[in-house]
């Protein structure tokens, strides 16, 4: 058992948990969190693909890809959260009315 196998399995598991959360949960923020877990899981897969037996240096390309993925996911999260906040305001206003 080498680290890449252990963390590869963990990454797939995290992706699966996130996938379940995104499709099965109802709460808006929780579904978003599920998606974030998916992105971390996919990151695990890429980083595991970059890992090499210790004396050898890892492959830098997937690392760069994952950094890009992290920033992209943050952007999407920020947009989704803005929608959640706005929608909540509108619904709260409707409830009061």
């Amino acid at each position: 058992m080498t680290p890449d196998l252990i963390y590869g399995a963990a990454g797939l598991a995290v992706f699966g948990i996130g996938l379940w959360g995104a499709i099965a949960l109802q709460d808006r923020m929780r579904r978003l969190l599920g998606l974030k877990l998916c992105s971390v899981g996919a990151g695990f897969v890429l980083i595991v693909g970059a890992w090499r037996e210790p004396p050898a240096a890892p492959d830098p390309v997937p690392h760069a890809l994952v950094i890009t993925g992290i920033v992209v996911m943050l952007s999407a999260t920020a947009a989704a959260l803005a929608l959640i906040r706005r929608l909540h305001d509108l619904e709260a206003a409707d409830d009061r009315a």
Partner: protein
Amino acid sequence: MSEPLFLFDLLLALAVVAIAAAALLVRDAFAMIVLFVVFGLLSALAWVRLAAPDVALAEAAIGTGLTGALLLKTLHHLRARGMAGWEPGAAAPRPVPRAVASLNAGLTLAVVAGLGVAILGSPLRVTGLEIAVAEAMPLSGVDNPVTAVLLNFRAYDTLMEVVVLLAAIIVVWQVERGADAAPAPSLGPIWQGFARLTLPAAAIVGVYLLWAGAEAPGGAFQGGAMLAAIGLMLLLTGLYRPHPDHRATARLLFVLGTVAFAAVALLVAGAGRASFEYPQGHAKTLILLIEGLVTISIAVTLTALFHGREPAALKGELRHDP
């Protein structure tokens, strides 16, 4: 020596998976966010173990730190407006039918199991692009391979990544037009003192990360995230209050990185060079120029994403301003 490390890896991987599940299952929304932050930090630790310190830094700062801040801000907003289900201990939302729930779980499990089997059945550890990267490194202008990939070999991707951030802030401003902010939490004098002590240090670390990115882990995104943390503290301490008059400047700062990056990419073309092909000997200068400007844009954009709504001329806000 590898035995304790193996144990460590196993425990860490188990913890990552368990906390991921716990974050989704815990009832209280605040606990959910805290567990998510713990999950992100542990993932970053795992990525350090997988020899990816650059990614670990980015995940800790952006993927966990700033995402956590965004989630907390949203939770504060929702709770300030009062919503059933958001107070701790409130009734759970209407339950999902058992059949649907088990169908979802079964589907997910089947997908993941299929993927796992397919991966196990495939040749692993194929040589990637590390040899090509190593050969091209002397021409790249920097010494950190990840930075070389991000700002030279795959600079086009990175430009588009900055564009994604720009798209996000445009969407956020558009969605939250004219929205009222939830009343800011008052954090007290101790917090103000802490902010005063840490702000300069955070600024130094941010610039250092940007600078170090050329040869060591770090770079524009990590540095930008660090500087954005300063922006968050400025907003939370009230040292900086967004004002409608600042909108034009903010827009300019949002687009600065995109414009500089794209302009350099187009202007270096010609004389037999393609777009994004830096002239020989100028690669380092151009990369540092791009990184510097992109860092400013990233820091400002991330701060604005946290602030959310566009600073519009609202009655309440004008009254607060001196």
